[in-house]
């Protein structure tokens, strides 16, 4: 399994790819600092520079497609850090850059025209967003527990900071709860790492994969690590903090949080399980059961939710459940099942990230345009804001999992994998989840197609905000048509066994 994560490699990095990786990691931070100093009211100048890191990433993809997985060993005195870049890392880096870029392009218009935010909040947005991109890149690249811990902490604190920016009382109260939960989660993670370090005396994932042996020490360490990460990922019994946090955050921040921050915790958890406990089928079933409960419970809450943002936030809990179902499909199953489920889970992650970011932006546009935060306030929206509603609809197609979208392809692969593994409960969960997500999405549409309402005062949002939401939604749809492309990237550098 660790070959798929790119942890076994003897490939030495070329100087060019090291430089490019460093550029990809550090450029967002630099741009964020500059943005904080100058506070761009238009997105274009920054975007042009940010395209540099996308180009660097494309170049890096070329390199890795030809040379295979690359690994870095950084010696800092007696301390060694391990990084690696394979196909999966590249896909996640690409996703991060795209979404941060989209949010950064969306933010100036949002802050200036829509929220009319003043004070120090908007100035802090840019450096924090850059820091978030850097810490996420660090998490995708890290191949040892110290790098992962640094990345996780940086990301957690940055995410809390971003959530606090609106400065209103409910944002601060929700942010305080989020801060305390994030801190407790990171303590659990650190305790787990301490036990692993004490037991086997090393922190690099490849070395640990060979050294660890099952026993009470490993189980307690894994329980602590998983608890901390699943708390941060808003997995089912630990999900209650998510909706209040999103409810009061700025729209581009919500989009980044749901699309990337939550996924990073999930990514670390899955990676640690695959490396440290690749045969723990019973425990993986437990996580899968949590995922099943999340799909159903999150769907029900989204269906019952009164506010638009709550619908989207609970839908995140529900969709994350699909990702948790990957645990029993990838752990302790045959090679054939793993090769199907492997593509399914990462495709689901990509599809959900793109669609959820698009949906948050579209919902933000609708809320700004109507001045209403409730679902019932959308009455008459279909005639007045067709573009926002169309973006919402296209994102919904991917979230529900209707045919041409990437969400459909991902769910199809997961379905196929659970059939191949003979784990029929997941079939029921996938079907139920599809029905529930269709139910809560159509509920939003039902309100928006109400025609016989009085004309209230509404103001259309700037066109580029609508266009960015639309572009992300289309990306999630088109990814389904070109699903062979991400799957090929996963395969070339992931090292097919």
């Amino acid at each position, binding site marked *: 399994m660790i070959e798929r994560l790119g942890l076994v490699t003897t490939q030495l990095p070329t100087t060019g790819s090291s430089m490019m990786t460093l550029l990809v990691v550090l450029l967002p931070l630099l741009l964020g600092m500059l943005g904080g100093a100058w506070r761009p009211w238009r997105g274009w100048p920054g975007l042009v520079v940010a395209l540099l890191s996308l180009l660097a990433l494309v170049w890096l993809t070329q390199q890795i497609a030809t040379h295979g997985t690359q690994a870095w060993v950084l010696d800092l*005195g*007696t*301390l060694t850090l391990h990084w690696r870049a394979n196909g999966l890392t590249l896909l996640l880096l690409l996703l991060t850059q795209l979404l941060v870029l989209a949010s950064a392009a969306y933010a100036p218009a949002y802050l200036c025209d829509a929220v009319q935010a003043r004070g120090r909040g908007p100035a802090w947005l840019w450096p924090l967003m850059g820091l978030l991109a850097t810490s996420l890149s660090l998490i995708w690249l890290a191949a040892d527990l*110290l790098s992962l*811990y*640094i990345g996780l*902490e940086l990301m957690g*604190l940055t995410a*809390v*900071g971003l959530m*606090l920016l609106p*400065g209103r*009382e409910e944002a*601060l*109260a929700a*942010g*305080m709860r989020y*801060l*305390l939960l*994030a*801190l*407790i989660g*990171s*303590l659990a993670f*650190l*305790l787990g*790492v*301490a*036990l692993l*370090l*004490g*037991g086997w*005396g*090393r*922190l690099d994932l490849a070395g640990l994969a060979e050294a660890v042996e099952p*026993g*009470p*020490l490993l*189980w*307690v*360490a894994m*329980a602590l690590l998983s608890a901390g990460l699943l708390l941060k990922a808003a997995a089912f019994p630990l999900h209650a903090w998510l909706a209040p946090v999103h409810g009061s955050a700025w729209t581009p921040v919500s989009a980044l949080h749901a699309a990337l921050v939550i996924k990073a915790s999930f990514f670390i958890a899955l990676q640690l399980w695959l490396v440290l406990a690749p045969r723990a089928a019973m425990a993986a079933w437990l996580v899968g059961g949590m995922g099943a409960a999340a799909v159903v419970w999150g769907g029900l809450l989204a269906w019952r939710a009164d506010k638009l943002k709550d619908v989207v936030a609970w839908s995140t809990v529900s969709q994350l459940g699909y990702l948790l179902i990957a645990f029993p499909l990838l752990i302790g199953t045959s090679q054939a099942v793993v090769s199907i489920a492997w593509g399914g889970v990462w495709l689901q992650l990509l599809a959900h990230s793109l669609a959820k970011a698009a949906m948050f932006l579209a919902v933000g546009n609708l809320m700004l345009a109507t001045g209403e935060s409730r679902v019932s306030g959308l009455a008459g929206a279909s005639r007045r804001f067709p573009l926002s509603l169309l973006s919402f609809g296209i994102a919904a197609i991917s979230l529900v999992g209707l045919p041409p979208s990437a969400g459909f392809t991902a769910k199809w692969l997961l379905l196929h994998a659970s059939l191949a593994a003979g784990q029929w409960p997941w079939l029921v969960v996938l079907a139920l989840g599809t029905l529930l997500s269709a139910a809560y999405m159509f509920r939003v549409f039902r309100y928006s197609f109400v025609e016989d309402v009085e004309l209230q005062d509404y103001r259309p949002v700037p066109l580029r905000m609508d266009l960015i939401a639309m572009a992300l939604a289309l990306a999630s749809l088109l990814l389904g048509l070109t699903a062979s492309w991400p799957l090929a990237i996963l395969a070339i550098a992931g090292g097919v066994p």
Partner: protein
Amino acid sequence: MSSLFDVLPATLPVLLAVLVLLDRRLLRACSLFVLFALTVALTWWRLGFIWLALLETLLGAVLTGAFLFHALGISPARGASPARPSHGQDPVPLIWRRTLIHLIPVLALMGMLAAALASLPASDSSPAVRWSGLVLVGLGLWAFALHTHLLRRLLAFNITGTGIFLLLMTLVGETTTAAGQGLVITGLAVALLGTALGALLIRRLDALAPSQQPSPVNGRQVS
């Protein structure tokens, strides 16, 4: 005599932590926390981790202490402020039943941890420090679950974190000291940033929502 000299630096933080977590006056609890961090720095020094001792003094005692006092509305320039409304949420009076109920999950976790630690070779240099680390983790978690006041939760978080750091450094071997120190230094920075963010938040929340009925200062509640 020498055994007393070994055990005392390890038990002193535990005693101080109990006082910090149970003191009903927030100002005194914060002052005791600074003292607690200094004794932990002493423990690092006794264990031979000079850098950690320095960082613990700087980050743990001085800066964290400064932010805690800032959360209370006390700054060196203005001195102790006059009676201010209670900070954050009001503290729930300690009830024995509540206290005991929250003790059960913490004891379960401690049992798990002890079982895991039992399978490891005993620390040859500092068994007392490992035990005090374990007790600090338990105490901090218990207080975190018990208290609802934001500042008390920050204190509890810091004490749990310190317990984990002590535990971690008794677990590392000769070859992995650098990795352990890297983890602890990151953890110290995170704890400081978390406390700073929390303290600033408490102040903002106070400023935004002046409490309706001014309750006695420093978390003392007429129960």
